C-alpha cells in the first residue's frame, strides 16, 4: 500500500476553526490569515495537556471515592455514604440492578477512561503501530461515554433538590461529589485535548 501523503508532507496546514488551508511556515506562532485562529499541525501540546489533565483527574478521583458524597437524614438517623458504600447499600437493600448501574457509571467508566487515555497516550507517544484502528475506536468510545459518568452527580443534585422534608427526610451533598464532578469534567477535557491523529502519526517512524 503506497504511502498516503500527510498535510505536513505537502507543506500545508489547516485552520481548526474556519478550515482554511494555508502554507506551513514552520513557525509555532502562525495565525490563520482569515479568522485569526492559531494554526497547528496537530492539537498543540496534546500529549502534555492530556497527561496533565489525566493526572489531575486521577488526583481528584481519590478524594471523590474516599470522601462521602451524600448525607441522608431520615427520622434523625444520619447516614453518610461514599460512592462505594452507597453501591453496597443499594445492593444489600435489594436493588442490585441500580447498584450495577451506579457501579458502572461511577467506578467502571472513570477507571476505564483513565486506562483508555493512558493507553492511547503511551502507545501514541511511542509511535506504536499496534492496533491503530482499534485504538481510534477506543478513543471514540471514551469521547462518547465521557458525559455519562456524571450520573452520580445528577443523582445527588436531584435528591438534594427534591428530598427536603426537614426532620423526616433530608439529603445533603457532601464534598466527595464535588471531587467526583471535577474528575468527570477533567477527564472529558483530557479526552478533548488528545489529538486522535497522533494515533496514526506513529507510521512515520516505521519507514
Amino acid at each position, binding site marked *: 500500500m503506497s504511502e498516503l501523503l500527510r498535510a505536513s508532507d*505537502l507543506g500545508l496546514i489547516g485552520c481548526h476553526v474556519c478550515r482554511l488551508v494555508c502554507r506551513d511556515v514552520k*513557525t509555532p506562532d502562525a495565525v490563520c490569515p482569515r479568522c485569526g485562529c492559531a494554526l497547528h499541525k496537530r492539537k498543540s501540546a496534546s500529549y*502534555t495537556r492530556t497527561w*496533565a489533565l489525566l493526572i*489531575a483527574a486521577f*488526583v481528584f478521583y481519590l*478524594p471523590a471515592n474516599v470522601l462521602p458524597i451524600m448525607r441522608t437524614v431520615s*427520622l434523625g438517623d444520619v447516614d453518610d455514604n461514599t460512592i462505594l458504600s452507597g453501591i453496597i447499600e443499594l445492593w444489600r437493600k435489594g436493588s442490585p440492578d441500580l447498584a450495577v448501574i451506579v457501579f458502572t457509571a461511577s467506578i467502571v467508566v472513570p477507571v476505564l477512561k483513565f486506562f483508555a487515555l493512558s493507553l492511547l497516550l503511551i502507545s501514541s507517544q511511542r509511535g506504536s503501530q499496534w492496533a491503530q484502528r482499534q485504538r481510534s475506536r477506543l478513543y471514540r468510545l471514551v469521547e462518547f461515554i465521557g458525559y455519562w459518568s456524571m450520573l452520580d452527580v445528577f443523582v445527588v443534585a436531584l435528591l438534594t433538590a427534591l428530598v427536603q422534608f426537614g426532620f423526616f427526610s433530608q439529603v445533603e451533598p457532601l464534598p466527595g461529589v464535588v471531587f467526583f464532578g471535577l474528575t468527570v469534567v*477533567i477527564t472529558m477535557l483530557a479526552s478533548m485535548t488528545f489529538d486522535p491523529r497522533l494515533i496514526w502519526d506513529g507510521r512515520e517512524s516505521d519507514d
Partner: protein
Amino acid sequence: MTDDKNIADDLPEPVVQRPRVNASLVWLVPVIAALVGLSLVIHAWYDAGPTINISFQSAEGLDPGKTPVKYKSVIIGKVNTVRLSDDRTHVVAKVALEKSAKGFATADSRFWVVRPRIGLGGVSGIDTLLSGAFIGADAGQSQEPKEDFVGLETPPTVTHGAPGRTFDLHTDDLGSLDIGSPVYYRRIQVGRVSSYHLNKDGKGVTLQIFIDAPNDQFVTTSSRFWNASGVDVSLGADGLKVNTQSLATVLAGGLAFQDPPGPHDATPAQENDAFTLFNDQATAMAPPDGEPRYIRMRFNQSLRGLAVGAPVEFLGVPFGRVVSINLDYDEKTQTFPTIVGAVVYPARLGKAHDKLVAIAKSQGDDEQMSAMMGKLVDRGLRAQARTGNLLTGQLYIAMDFLPKATKVDFDGRTKPLEIPTAPGDFDKIQQQIADIVNKIQKVPFDSIGNNLDQSLAELHKTLQQVNGSVLPELKNTLQGAQKTLGNADSALSPDSQLQQNLGGTLQELQRAARSLRVMTDYLGAHPDALLRGRRADDKLAPMPPSPAPVEPSQGSKP
C-alpha cells in the same frame, strides 16, 4: 511533486503574531489538583485526634462508622469498629476522637452509652429513640493520656466541671436510695446521689451526693441530712400527719437536708465534707448524739414486751435504745435474770450532761464518771421496765430516782456500766394483785360450801315439817278466823239488830244532850231558876220531833 508545491505557493500565508502562552502551563492543573488532595490529607491528618478503645457490656445500639461520641451534645468522635474482646465477656468499641477532643483521651474521662431509659426517677435519652444511641463522654481533669477505657453502664449523674459541690454522707444502710436519687432542700430538688460504696470495714455505707450551684451554699457545717424516702406517718397530739417530700421520693427514694432550728454555725460546708445521714427528719433535727455509751441492766423479772430498739429514757427524756436482751442464770438464787444491754447517748441530755461532766472533771473523776454514777445510784437512780402502751404491753426502760429503792452495792468501774434496777410500777401492781389473790385463795371456800350445804339440808327438812303439820293447822285457824270475821261483818251490817239498837241509843243520847243544852241556856238566862224554879210563863223551846232536823239558829237565838 512540483504541482503540489505550486499549490502550496498559491495558498495564503499565515500571519505571525507574538508568542502565545506556554503550553506547559497546563501542568498547573494537576499541581492544583495535587495541592487540593494534599490539603485534604493534611486537613484529615491535622484533624485526626487520638483513637481510644472503650469496652462495654454489650454493643447494643453501637453502629460502627456511625455512632457518634458526644459531649454536651457536640460530636467529638465516632465509633469506627466494634469487636468482641478476646475473652468474649464484653465488647470493645474503637473510637476515633476529633483533634479538639484530645483532652478526652485522659485517665479520668468517662464514657457511657446513652440509650432511652425509663425509671422511677424520670425518663432520659428519648431523642436516641429515633437517632439511635450515642456514646456520652465526660472529660476529667487528669493530663495523663490513656487509650483503653471501661465504659459505664449507667450515665454518671455528675459531670466534671458542673458547678456545685460534692459531699459525703455516712449511713447504716442504703435504704431505697440509688444513684441519681434526688436531694431536696425545702422540697426543691437541688442535687442528687452521685455514687455510693460500702465502707471498707463493711460497717455502713458512704454516699456521695452532688449539690448544684448556687444551692450548694445552703449546705452548712451544721446541716442535717435525712432519708426522705417513702411516707412518714406520725400520730401526734395534733392528729395524724403524713409527710413526704414528693411523689417521686415515695417511689424512688430521696434525701433532704436542712439546718437545725435555733442558733447554729452557718458557715458553708467545704467540698467533700462528711455528714451523717439520719433515718428521718425528727432524728436528724434532734441535738447531736455525741459519743454512745453502752450500759447493762439486770432485771429479775419477765420482760415480755421489751423489744430491741425500745427507748431508754432518763426522767422522761429519751436518750438511748435497747440493743440486746439476753437471759442469764444465777446459780445462787437459781433464777433467770434478764440482761438488757442498751446504747445511750448522754449528750442528748443537754445541759444536765454538760454540767455533770464538768463537775465530774473538776472532782477528778475517771472517764466513766464512776464516782458520779455511784452518787446518783445512792440517791436512788434505778432502771425500771415500764409499760409504754397498756394495749400492746410494750415496755421501755426508764431511769428514775426512786427514794424508796433498796440500797445496792454499785461498782461504777465495771465495763460496761451496770445500772441497778428496780421492779417496775406495773410489776408492783401485779405483785399486789397477786397478794390479794393469795389472800382470797386462803378463804376456805370448801368448808364454807359444805356447811352451807348442810344448813340448806336442815332448812329443807324444816320446810317439809312446816308443810306437813303446821300448814293444815294454819288452814283450820284461818277458817275459824274467817267465820269470826263473817259474824262480825253481819253484826256490823246496817240492818242488824246491833246496828238498830245502836242507832236508837244514839238518838236517845242526842235528845238527852239537847235537853241538857236547853237547860244550860235557860239557866244562863235565868240563873235564879236554880233557886226559885221555873217560872210559869217561860216557854221552853219546842222539842223537835226527831234529832236530825236540828236547826242551829234555834239554839243560838235566845
